[in-house]
């Protein structure tokens, strides 16, 4: 396929994409496309194959089998050309600890063949964008986790990429730092930068992604917008019931299950709580009371991608 830049051409195109390490299959024949300007996410627990997929897209991990093109180019043959238009935010910060904040950006621009002057112009602008201007001449090591992440994002933008790859961009950050980061990513999206990210946080996926795939054990198990996935796989509301388990009492889940039977279209018993998937959560709670159940706490909430994941895999994302 020759390189074209038509608006309709996907930024990333994968069919049957597979990555194996020896006998271990990290990515097992996945299909997806990422359109220009889209924010696309891989949602899944650790070890689902998200990072392996990202590394193949970043052209730093050879494809074992299947088809993969980035900007219509083959990563095996045009790695350098692809990378020149790519921004990469890896899971672990790979900042240059021997250089200052500003120097990290300057030299990274040089790796992308920018002149010193152009690199400096962009670096200054980017430090402003990620709110690190005051720290420009500081060493990298003492920066907080959130600041380091922002610096890595600034670094990934030095070549003005049309596609930004982010592997677990906010893992390990406090809520305030996460929100600042999401805000910056949202602004990039507004500017037309295509985002491709992995996350195991459903709130992150809901906040940032136009469309996502749910990955579990090397495979894609569902695809759609966050809203679509919730509508398709779970009810609008979830009733969460927690029960006191009296000391010495053994497993009462069978008894509990009997009592809950038929209360809603789907009931999920977790070790610490019971999830009742109902169109009307309040009504379900009332019905549970009528059946003589006396939970210690009752919560009705909107269903989330977490519930989608639980439904699809039978496991919780957070573990």
């Amino acid at each position, binding site marked *: 396929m020759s390189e074209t830049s038509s608006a309709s051409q996907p930024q990333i195109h994968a069919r049957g994409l597979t990555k194996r390490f020896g006998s271990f299959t990290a990515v097992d024949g996945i299909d997806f496309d990422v359109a220009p300007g889209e924010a696309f996410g891989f949602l899944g627990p650790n070890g689902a194959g998200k990072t392996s997929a990202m590394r193949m897209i970043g052209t730093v991990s050879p494809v074992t089998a299947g088809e993969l093109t980035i900007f219509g180019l083959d990563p095996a043959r045009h790695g350098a050309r692809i990378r*020149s238009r*790519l921004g*990469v935010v*890896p899971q672990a910060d*790979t900042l240059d*600890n*021997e250089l200052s904040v500003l120097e990290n950006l300057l030299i990274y621009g040089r*790796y992308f063949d920018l002149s010193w002057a152009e690199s400096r112009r962009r670096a200054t602008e980017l430090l402003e964008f990620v709110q690190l201007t005051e720290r420009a001449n500081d060493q990298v090591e003492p920066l907080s986790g959130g600041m380091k992440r922002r610096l890595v994002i600034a670094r990934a933008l030095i070549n003005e990429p049309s596609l930004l790859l982010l592997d677990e961009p906010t893992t390990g950050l406090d809520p305030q730092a996460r929100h600042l980061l999401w805000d910056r990513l949202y602004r990039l999206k507004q500017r037309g930068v295509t985002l491709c990210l992995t996350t195991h946080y459903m709130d992150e996926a809901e906040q940032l992604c136009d469309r996502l795939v749910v990955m579990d054990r090397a495979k894609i198990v569902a695809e759609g917008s966050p809203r679509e996935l919730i509508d398709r796989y779970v009810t609008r509301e979830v009733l969460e019931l927690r029960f006191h388990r009296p000391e010495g009492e053994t497993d009462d889940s069978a008894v509990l299950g009997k009592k809950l039977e038929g209360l809603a279209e789907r009931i999920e018993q977790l070790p610490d709580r019971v999830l009742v998937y109902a169109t009307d959560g309040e009504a379900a709670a009332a019905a549970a009371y009528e059946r003589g159940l006396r939970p210690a706490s009752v919560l009705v909430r909107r269903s989330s991608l977490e519930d989608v994941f639980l439904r699809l895999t039978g496991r919780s994302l957070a573990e």
Partner: protein
Amino acid sequence: MVGLRIALPLAMRRPTRLVQRNMLVYRHSFMVIFSGFFEPLFYLLSMGFGVGALIGDVALGDGRSVPYAVFVAPALLASSAMNGAIYETSNNFFGKLKYAKLYDAIIATPMSLQDVARGEVLWALMRGSLYSIGFLGVVGLLSLVGLGLISSPLAWLAFPSATVVGYAFAGAGMAATTFVRKWRDFDFLQLAIMPMFLFSGTFYPIDAYPAAVQTFVQLTPLYRGVHLIRAFTTGSLDATLLIDLVYLIAMGTVGLAITSRRLGKLLLA
């Protein structure tokens, strides 16, 4: 400068980006660089002039005899080129590769693994050249005050020769480092470097050895480096210099090729 930039293809320009990165790092601690400058100088003073006063003249292969300092100075230059290259491509390179994850960040850019390998070798050579220039400068100064250490108008060729020695050890050192798993493995490297420094015709002519040992020593890279540089500083030239050159350039080039391949295995999983 502009003309040069356009003329050089990317394949040659990209490795220099890594050199620029290293220069940025050392900009803040430039004195560290100079530490490597004094070691060969101290050896020259103690061995060349101190011990040399006890020894007197040493016979060169071509029948001439020269003062001991003249004999030992080129060997110290070769050893310093070796040490500089090994220092930069062992501990420093290993730290950047395994712990700083420097190259993981770099390969996300258009820079290739070859660019990384070439860039680090180029840097090691530049750093080594600084020491060679310093050493030769001191040798030149000593000649001005009558302590002549040079007996040939071709002595200036000792500088490019030292660079060739540096290239050989930088390439081989980097290749070896890509196989290293932990810091302690470098002890084995020292086990190879130290005897070479002492026994490669550095401090005395190798005809002190039995024939079999002589042949073995002649196969070691530092011997070839000492032989090459000494030929230029003493003006004792013959066709065997070609063996030195081919040997050392091949060693560096093969080392570079192995390094690129190994980096691929280590970084592109």
